């Protein structure tokens, strides 16, 4: 029996505060998380939740006040050089040299990580083809579209085949098609064995791209797990059925439905005229749906309309904080502002 592989990111009790206008603001307050090798891991939270600060600590850009962080087998504070050799980083600002060409950018990155000139050229050609940059590689980055630039920036982050790739809000500002392309490329990287750690404030990105998600708020993890697990743990499917029946059958319908095992909560309201609106909270929408139709048919009530709403990660956030992710946090860029003042 071989020992289980070491996690690629292990964070315990991480804290970091900044002084803003004389007062200490804690951006990361006691963060714990573990990311296994080969995962796509997402840090989901509103602006100002501490996502960028956490990423900066993990990539050696910022020292933590306390707590420990091991990345790719090395301690970020005690062995930053070892961490830097093993990680790639794609920041929110991108960081491509705009006046230089794509190829010049890639060559420099490769050489800085110790590739030989020939090795860097080979890797550059390889990535240019994977990221569809062949035709534009010798143009100045200034002329690139947003999607092209993002692809170059991801390529810059993986020139040296890092063990862990960190991305800060990688799809912010991209159109849907470019987002989908980037997701595909990140999954390909994961399949090739790269561990991927990203921050996002997009629910669908966390949901569809990530194997596991940590939802953070005010600098601490409030929920962690696979998107499916989280959604099932924190909320359930909702079925809404509109049926035709006189208001006096309300109680009978409610009693009938409450007896169905898959239904955890049933609310029946009378609507306009001969209408009933039935709202059901269920654990398994497919099974419950059949049971609901069966029960209504048994009572001789015809259904007019039915819909199922799947839970989202926003329900998880709402369940934990009482706020919606969309409304939480401060306006765009507040996270960066805190650090701006503190530096």
């Amino acid at each position, binding site marked *: 029996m071989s020992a289980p592989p070491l996690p690629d990111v292990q964070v315990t009790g991480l804290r970091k505060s900044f002084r803003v206008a004389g007062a200490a603001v804690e951006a990361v307050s006691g963060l714990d998380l573990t990311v296994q090798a080969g995962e796509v891991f997402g840090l989901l939270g509103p602006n100002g939740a501490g996502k960028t600060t956490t990423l900066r600590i993990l990539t050696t850009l910022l020292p933590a006040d306390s707590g420990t962080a091991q990345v790719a087998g090395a301690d970020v504070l005690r062995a930053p050089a070892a961490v830097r050799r093993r990680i790639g980083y794609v*920041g929110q600002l991108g960081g491509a040299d705009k006046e230089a060409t794509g190829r*010049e950018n890639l060559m420099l990155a490769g050489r800085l990580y*110790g590739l030989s000139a020939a090795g860097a050229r080979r890797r550059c050609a390889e990535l240019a083809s994977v990221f569809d940059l062949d035709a534009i590689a010798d143009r100045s980055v200034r002329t690139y579209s947003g999607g092209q630039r993002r692809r170059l920036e991801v390529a810059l982050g993986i020139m040296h085949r890092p063990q862990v790739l960190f991305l800060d809000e990688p799809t912010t500002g991209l159109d849907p098609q470019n987002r989908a392309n980037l997701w595909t490329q990140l999954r390909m990287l994961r399949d090739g064995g790269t561990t991927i750690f990203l921050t996002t404030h997009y629910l669908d990105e966390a949901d569809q791209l990530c194997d596991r998600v940590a939802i953070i708020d005010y600098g601490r993890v409030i929920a962690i797990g696979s998107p499916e697990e989280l959604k099932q743990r924190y909320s359930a499917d909702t079925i809404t059925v509109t049926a035709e029946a006189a208001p006096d059958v309300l109680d009978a319908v409610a009693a009938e439905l409450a007896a169905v095992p898959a239904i955890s909560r049933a609310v029946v309201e009378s609507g306009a005229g001969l209408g009933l609106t039935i709202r059901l909270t269920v654990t398994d929408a497919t099974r419950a749906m059949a049971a609901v139709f069966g029960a209504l048919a048994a009572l001789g009530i015809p259904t007019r309309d039915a819909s199922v709403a799947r839970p989202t990660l926003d329900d998880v956030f709402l369940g934990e904080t009482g706020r919606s992710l969309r409304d939480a946090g401060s306006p765009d860029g507040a996270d960066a502002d805190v650090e701006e003042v503190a530096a």
Partner: protein
Amino acid sequence: MTAFAVQTGLFFRRKLLETLRQPVWIITGLTTPVLYLALFAPLLRSLAGGPAFPPGPVLDVFLPGIMVLIAFGAGMGAGWPVIWELDSGVIERLRVTPASRLALLLGTVLRDIVMFAVPGVVVIAAGAAFGYQVHWGGILLLFVLLALLTAACSATSSALGLKLRQIGSLAAVVTGAQLPLTLLAGILLPLSLGPAWLRVLGHVNPMYYAVQAARSLAAGSVGTGTVGLGFLVTGVIAVLAVCWGTRAYQRAMA
């Protein structure tokens, strides 16, 4: 050590390309000093031989002044691109690589030394055409001394850019410092023309010693105490500035 040398070379090349992509700077960098020679030197000729003007040919006094000005200008420009690079995330990205922070700084410093040396050679050549008598040993040492001054200015400007992070603040500090630094060094007009208090004030200015040494070297007197003091002060300032710049790169946050 070899990795460090490779990295320094890569950053130097990167910065040199950055300059070569902007031909405007190269043209003004070459024409401005020549214009000084053509338009300002004639004014000085009538001062020469007057009271308190240093003895010797006018160009021995004036040419080193222009050279110091070129060195100062070549170095002090380093901070502006640093701010652009902070804003576009380039520095953040480079800081996540294993590259040495000193190499990152020295790439810019070396580029700025080239940006001083090339117009410097043009000025000496033009000066020779205007009648300056070239003292080879002295001129060689003059380039070494002013390369140190360029390094000091370049590292200081990079550090200021990394600390201030705003074009406006950097411009205010650099232009604010430029006038007292250059006037009190006696770059264009020797301080010996001024009253005693001005000359005393000059001694507080580290650049004053570089200018004095440069004049001595340009006139061909190599082994003087003035030259030794100039190298000592400029060398110490350059080392301090490079340390400061490297620290600033270690801590820079976008």
